[in-house]
C-alpha cells in the first residue's frame, strides 16, 4: 500500500494530477477530437469532394434498411461469438497445463505466445498461402490423413470458420496469460486438502480452480469480445471481406465505405453505431474489473 495522499498533512501541496496534463492533451487531440468530428460528419452527406449538406439522421436511417450493413452486423456477431468461445476454452486448458511444473516450461510458454506477438499482416499472408486449395499445405495434411480437402477461405460456407481458426490460433495465448495470472495467485491449501481427500485432477479443476479463477476468465472473455469485434488485419489481408461479402464484418465494411467508396458521412454514422456497441461491452468490462478490484 502506498502512503495515503489525501489524508497526509501536506496533501494540499501535492498536485499529482499535473503529471497527467500533457498526456491528457494528447488524448484530447487524438481521441476526443476525432469522436466529436465523427459525430459531426455522421449527420452530413460527406463525400471527400464537393458540398457536405446537413442531412440530419438520414445516415442512421439508411443503416436500418441497408441489407449489406445488416448482414455485416449478423456476420460480425457470429464471427465474434465463435472467436470468443474457442480461444476461451483452449486458453483455460492451456493455462491449467502451463500452471503445472514441467521441463522446458518457459520455452514452451514463449513459443505458445509467439502467434499473438507476431505481425498480423505477416502471419495472415502465410495463412493465405496455406489455405491455397490446390497447393496449400493444409489440404496436403487433410488428404494425407484421408480427409476431404477444404476450400478454406475460398468458399462462402467455410470462410468464417476458417477465419475463426486463425483468430483462435492467434489469440488463445492472451486468454492463457490472463487465466494463468489468476491461477498463479490462488492459495495452495484447498488443493492440499483435496489431495488428502483423494480428489482427482478433474475434480480439483472443476471444484477449486474453476470457481476461483472465474473472475479472470470473465476478464479474458470481455477483452476477447472487444478484440474479436474489432478484428481487422487478418480478415482484410486474407479475404478483404470476400468471397463476395461472405466475410465482410462491420469493421471491414466500415473501411470499404470510408476509404474505397469515400462515403465518409455514412461511414461515420456506422462508426458511431459500432462504437456504441463496443462501449456497451466495455462497460461490462469495467464492472468485471471493479468486482475484481474488490477482492
Amino acid at each position, binding site marked *: 500500500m502506498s502512503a495515503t495522499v489525501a489524508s497526509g498533512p501536506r496533501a494540499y501541496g501535492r498536485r499529482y494530477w499535473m503529471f497527467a496534463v500533457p498526456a491528457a492533451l494528447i488524448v484530447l487531440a487524438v481521441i476526443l477530437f476525432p469522436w466529436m468530428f465523427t459525430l459531426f460528419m455522421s449527420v452530413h452527406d460527406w463525400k471527400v469532394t464537393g458540398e457536405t449538406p446537413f442531412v440530419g439522421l438520414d445516415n442512421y436511417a439508411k443503416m436500418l434498411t441497408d441489407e449489406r450493413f445488416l448482414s455485416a452486423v449478423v456476420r460480425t456477431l457470429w464471427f465474434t461469438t465463435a472467436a470468443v468461445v474457442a480461444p476461451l476454452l483452449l486458453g483455460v486448458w492451456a493455462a491449467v497445463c502451463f500452471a503445472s511444473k514441467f521441463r522446458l516450461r518457459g520455452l514452451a510458454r514463449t513459443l505458445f505466445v509467439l502467434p499473438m*506477438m507476431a505481425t498480423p499482416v505477416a502471419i495472415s499472408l502465410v495463412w493465405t498461402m496455406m489455405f491455397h486449395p490446390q497447393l496449400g499445405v493444409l489440404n496436403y495434411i487433410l488428404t494425407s490423413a484421408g480427409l476431404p480437402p477444404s476450400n478454406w477461405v475460398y468458399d462462402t460456407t467455410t470462410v468464417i470458420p476458417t477465419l475463426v481458426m486463425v483468430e483462435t490460433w492467434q489469440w488463445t495465448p492472451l486468454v492463457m496469460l490472463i487465466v494463468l495470472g489468476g491461477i498463479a495467485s490462488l492459495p495452495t491449501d484447498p488443493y492440499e486438502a483435496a489431495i488428502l481427500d483423494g480428489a482427482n485432477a478433474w475434480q480439483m479443476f472443476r471444484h477449486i480452480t474453476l470457481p476461483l479463477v472465474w473472475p479472470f476468465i470473465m476478464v479474458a472473455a470481455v477483452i476477447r469480445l472487444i478484440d474479436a469485434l474489432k478484428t481487422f488485419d487478418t480478415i482484410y489481408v486474407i479475404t478483404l471481406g470476400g468471397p463476395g461479402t461472405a466475410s465482410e464484418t462491420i469493421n471491414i465494411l466500415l473501411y470499404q465505405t470510408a476509404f474505397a467508396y469515400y462515403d465518409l458521412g455514412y461511414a461515420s454514422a456506422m462508426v458511431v453505431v459500432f462504437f456504441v456497441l463496443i462501449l456497451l461491452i466495455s462497460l461490462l468490462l469495467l464492472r468485471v474489473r471493479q468486482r475484481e478490484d474488490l477482492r
Partner: protein
Amino acid sequence: MNRHLLRRFLGRLGLYASVLLLVSPAVLFFLWMLSLSLKNELDNTAWPPVFIPNPPTLDNFIDVFAKNDFLTYTINSVIVSFSATGLALLFGVPAAYGIAKSKAQKAAALILIARVTPGLSYLIPLFLLFQWLGLIGTLVPLVITHLVITVPIVVWVMIGFFEGLPGELEEAALMDGANIWQAFLYVAMPLARPGITVAMILSFIFSWNNFIFGVVLAGRSTRTLPVAVYNVLTFEQISWGPLAAAALIVTAPVLLLTLVMQKEIVAGLTAGGVKGG
C-alpha cells in the same frame, strides 16, 4: 507398479501430450513460414509440398530488397515505432505516476476506453485533418496516430507498476523538502525502470505491428513494413518465396524480441490484457 504411481505417470503423460498439442500449431506455423522463405519457386509450388528446403536458398531475401524499396520501408517503420514509443514514454510515464498517486480511477477508465475504441473511428476524421494540413505523404500522421496505441499501453502498464511501488522512499524525500516533481524524477523513476522496460517493449511491438493506420495514411514512400508487405508484394508479384521472406523480415524483430525478453513481456501482458489497435 502400484495404482498411485500409474495414475501419476498417466497424469504426466497427459500433461506432456497436451502441451505438445497446444504448442505445435504455433511452432509448425513458423517453421513452415521459414521453409517457404528458404525454398525456390519450383519447390514452393510442388505437390506434394517440399517441407525441408534442399538446398536452402537466400534468393528470396535478396529478391525482396533488390526488387523493392524495402530499405526505405524498414527505415520508415523504425522511425515511426521509435518516435511513437519515445513520445508515449515521455508523456505516459508521468501521467501514469499522477494517476497512480492521486488514485484517479476515472482517468484510468478513460485510458481503457482508448483500448476499446476501434482504430477506424479515429482514422476518418484524422485522415481529413491531415489532408487539410497537407501532412499526408509525410511520416508525421503515422507517428501521431501510433500514439493512440502506444500511450494507452504505457499508461496502463505503468499505473500498475507505480501502484505496486512502496511509497516510503518518496515520502522520505518529500519530508526532506523535495517537491513532487523531484520525488518522481529522482526516487520513483529509478525504481520503476523494470516497468518502463516492459512498457517500452510492448508499445514498440504493437506500434511495429500496426497495419490499419499505415494502410490509410501512408503515401507511396512513407509505407511502414506491414503496409509495404501487403501493398507491394501481393500486387506486384505473387510468388510465394519472396512473400514469405518479406513476411519473415517484418515479423522477425518482434519474434526475436519476444524470445529474448519473454519474462518482461509476459509480465506486462498479464497485467494489462494489452493489445494494440
